[in-house]
């Protein structure tokens, strides 16, 4: 530990000395710490006065991502709000540890005593059962009980083998997965390397498998897959090095049976399942419930329960009542106001975990008054984030200081959230030249947990500044999204609340789409960040 601190001090000093001669973004004092050997240090925060250009060039991909996080913290393109929690209610008759990627794996739920069936109530049902033809968590939860991918994640997000038993990078742009043998689909067919290659190609190529998969952008960079010669393995080709290829496969790309897909139409595939997972489909009642039974020929241990039911219950108080009366075993999204009611019950408890979703207030970087970095920083100083989290979210959230979240690759542990400092905020507003600014925060209502209430609190704090007046405008999510994703930064609002989930656990997948002009949803562009990201994306992950 102490050696690290010494090293950082040295680098900071060296960086300052070299500052005058340095090229922007190519030198500096960041120590490129890696998770686990860093002290989380208090030496450098956004307010220490040093600039990014004073630091030495990072040497690893993680270092570049962490540097980008630091630059973004200093440039404050967002009001950094919170990392959203997933809050679940559990009956005392099951044991389960929530995962931080918002997914519920029925295989991991252990019924207690003589109980042999499990019921899960989530807020909405699936948009069809084709695992390649959707992109939302409620559907993921329903399909992943029956379908599996090559890799998966544990509760903390670490990559684990699933249908692959090994994986390696052969060369930039080519990776190889060794396949598990003895795996069979629920139809009885054995899983082959042809099935696996077909599944990858079905997602990334328009002319394979009869659909334009919305998951294509979740396997960014992947071009094709082919069965390996001789062995039970598959080679996946990407354009360029694709540093996050394994992270992508750990979250996406369920394996389907090629002959089953090719011999059935879309309506059938969307109302039936034929995966390799521990549970197989028993009955499917669209919009109402899905019932699974244990799959006898599963390659692993039999699932702990014989039967599993997932039902859609949109109304949160109804879900809570179901849990309290013992009609269901696991409910998603316990609203903060009901958490104590669940916790105080003898038969149920609350279980929460930090999710992969970040909630932030974007400030469009080239629109007045947000084109001033001082003004943007002032917005961060002006709000009491801790109080918002305690009072609005009942503590079920983490404060954030950067686009990456703790535990994600490229997270910078040295950055602290902006402190609540009204005087500093007012001073910075004066300095920005935008004193007297009138701003409007656009927020969706009901899309994210307590979104409107968070926006109202933020605006309350901003409006308290002597030299800024602020108000909230409530928006329909669909309409707001239309303005944000049309590829034209000028058609959307200049200041808005939105959330972003990043289930690859790689910081690049938040920074690239949101904070570089490569992204579909960007609100900010800087040459320095672009440069750091292009460096990061040209390197493989070090671990």
């Amino acid at each position: 530990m102490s050696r690290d601190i010494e090293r950082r001090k040295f680098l900071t000093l060296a960086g300052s000395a070299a500052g005058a001669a340095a090229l922007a973004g190519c030198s500096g004092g960041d120590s490129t710490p890696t998770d686990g050997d860093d002290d989380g240090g208090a030496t450098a925060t956004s307010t220490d006065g040093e600039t990014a250009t004073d630091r030495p060039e990072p040497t690893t991909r993680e270092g570049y991502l962490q540097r980008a996080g630091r630059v973004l913290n200093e440039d404050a393109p967002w009001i950094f709000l919170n990392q959203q929690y997933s809050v679940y209610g559990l009956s005392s008759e099951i044991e389960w540890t929530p995962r931080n990627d918002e997914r519920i794996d029925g295989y991991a739920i252990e019924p207690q005593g003589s109980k042999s069936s499990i019921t899960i109530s989530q807020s909405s049902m699936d948009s069809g059962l084709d695992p390649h033809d959707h992109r939302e968590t409620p559907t993921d939860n329903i399909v992943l009980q029956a379908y599996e991918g090559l890799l998966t994640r544990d509760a903390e997000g670490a990559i684990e083998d699933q249908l692959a038993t090994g994986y390696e990078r052969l060369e930039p742009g080519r990776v190889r997965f060794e396949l598990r043998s003895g795996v069979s689909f629920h139809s009885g067919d054995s899983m082959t390397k042809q099935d696996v290659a077909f599944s990858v190609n079905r997602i990334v190529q328009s002319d394979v498998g009869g659909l334009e998969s919305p998951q294509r952008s979740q396997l960014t960079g992947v071009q094709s897959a082919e069965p390996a010669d001789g062995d039970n393995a598959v080679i996946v080709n990407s354009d360029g090095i694709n540093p996050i290829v394994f992270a992508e496969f750990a979250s996406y790309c369920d394996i389907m049976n090629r002959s089953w897909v090719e011999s059935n139409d879309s309506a059938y595939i969307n109302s039936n399942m034929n995966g390799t997972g521990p549970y197989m489909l028993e009955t499917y009642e669209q919009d109402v419930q899905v019932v699974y039974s244990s799959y006898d020929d599963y390659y692993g241990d039999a699932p702990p329960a014989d039967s599993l039911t997932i039902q859609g219950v949109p109304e949160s108080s109804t879900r809570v009542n179901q849990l309290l009366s013992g009609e269901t075993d696991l409910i998603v999204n316990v609203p903060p106001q009901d958490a104590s009611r669940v916790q105080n019950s003898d038969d149920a408890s609350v279980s929460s975990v930090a999710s992969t979703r970040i909630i932030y207030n974007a400030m469009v970087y080239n629109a007045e008054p947000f084109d001033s970095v001082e003004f943007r920083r002032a917005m961060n100083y002006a709000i009491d984030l801790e109080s918002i989290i305690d009072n609005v979210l009942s503590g079920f959230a983490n404060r954030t200081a950067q686009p990456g979240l703790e535990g994600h690759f490229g997270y910078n542990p040295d950055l602290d959230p902006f402190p609540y400092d009204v005087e500093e905020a007012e001073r910075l507003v004066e300095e920005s030249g935008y004193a007297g600014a009138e701003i409007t925060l656009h927020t969706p209502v009901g899309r994210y947990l307590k979104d409107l209430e968070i926006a109202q609190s933020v605006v309350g704090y901003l409006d308290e500044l002597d030299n800024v007046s602020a108000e909230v405008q409530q928006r329909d999510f669909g309409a707001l999204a239309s303005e944000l994703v049309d590829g034209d930064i000028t058609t959307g609002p200049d200041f808005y609340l939105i959330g972003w989930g990043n289930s690859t656990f790689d910081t690049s997948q938040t920074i690239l789409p949101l904070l570089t002009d490569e992204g579909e949803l960007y609100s900010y562009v800087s040459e320095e960040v672009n440069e750091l990201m292009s460096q990061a994306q040209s390197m493989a992950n070090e671990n």
Partner: protein
Amino acid sequence: MASFGRFLTKRVLQGLGVVLGVITVLFVLRYITPGNPVDVIAPLDAGPETRRRIAENLGLDQPLYVQYFDYIVSLLQGDMGYSYRSRTAVAPRVFAKLPATLELAVASTLVAVVISIPLGVVSATRRHEFPDYVATLFSLLGISTPNFWLGVMLVVLLAVQFQVFPTSSRPVGFLETVGNLVVVSGPEQGWALPLNVDGFVADARNWLFHLFLPAVTLGTYFTALITRLTRSGMLDQLGQGYVQAARAKGLPETLVRYRHALRNTLIPVITVVGLQLGTLIGGAVITEAVFDWPGLGSLVIDAINNRDWPLIQGSLVVIGSGFVFVNIVVDALYARLNPQVME
């Protein structure tokens, strides 16, 4: 009789006009509502090319009149299009939800009628006495209690606290329940299998248990309304000359009240009950949400949240047509009971 036929034909034609109007208004609404459906279907980070392809697949790139004409033609063929979100056919989804909605609407109407008509009669015949005050208080409470609050309170009390009733959902429907009584026969099952009476009893019990709280919740409001209507109607009739005449002839008071006065009182009550039934088919949204009742109301809400226009249109066309149908039936019934309306 001929005039009744003409009256009915006229009403049916008017009804069809209204249904066409509903279809057209929905179609227009779809295009003036802000927010492009493609943005809701496509992931936030999808590129313009993906968006264009999605729009093309959905036929959204066609001129409006072509889309309108295509929609009407498909409707006539029983095709309501495909859901944007799940890409499954809308018609079977909507019709799958219809039984749940009808069960709830009919059950809550029954709850209302069974409680309110006797209550109204008692209230009118014992005017300004204790039973009248109790009935009035009950009506007032019923009308002023919001449905969602009553529903949640009933659940918290009777389902969570005392666990007498289940909180929600509909594990079995009326059709499945009655299905137990249908004799299954054929060469494979063996001819003339005995009726599954045990299954029927078990299912009926389960069905009624789940239906009870939502039906009571939804029925309470209308109970109050119909009680007031019956009371004032009954008072009105009891003051009429024919009632005096019947009494003067020496008919027993019970016969006068229930045979003569109540019969005439029920004419306007039937109209209101019919109209309420129509409202219930589409308007039970909140109750359906509180009780997780899988009817059309929850389907519409879900569809609206997802901007799933084909599903919204399909559900509302069915709800609108149901309303129009109930109205025609009520009109016909009314015309039979009181031929004056046909003039």
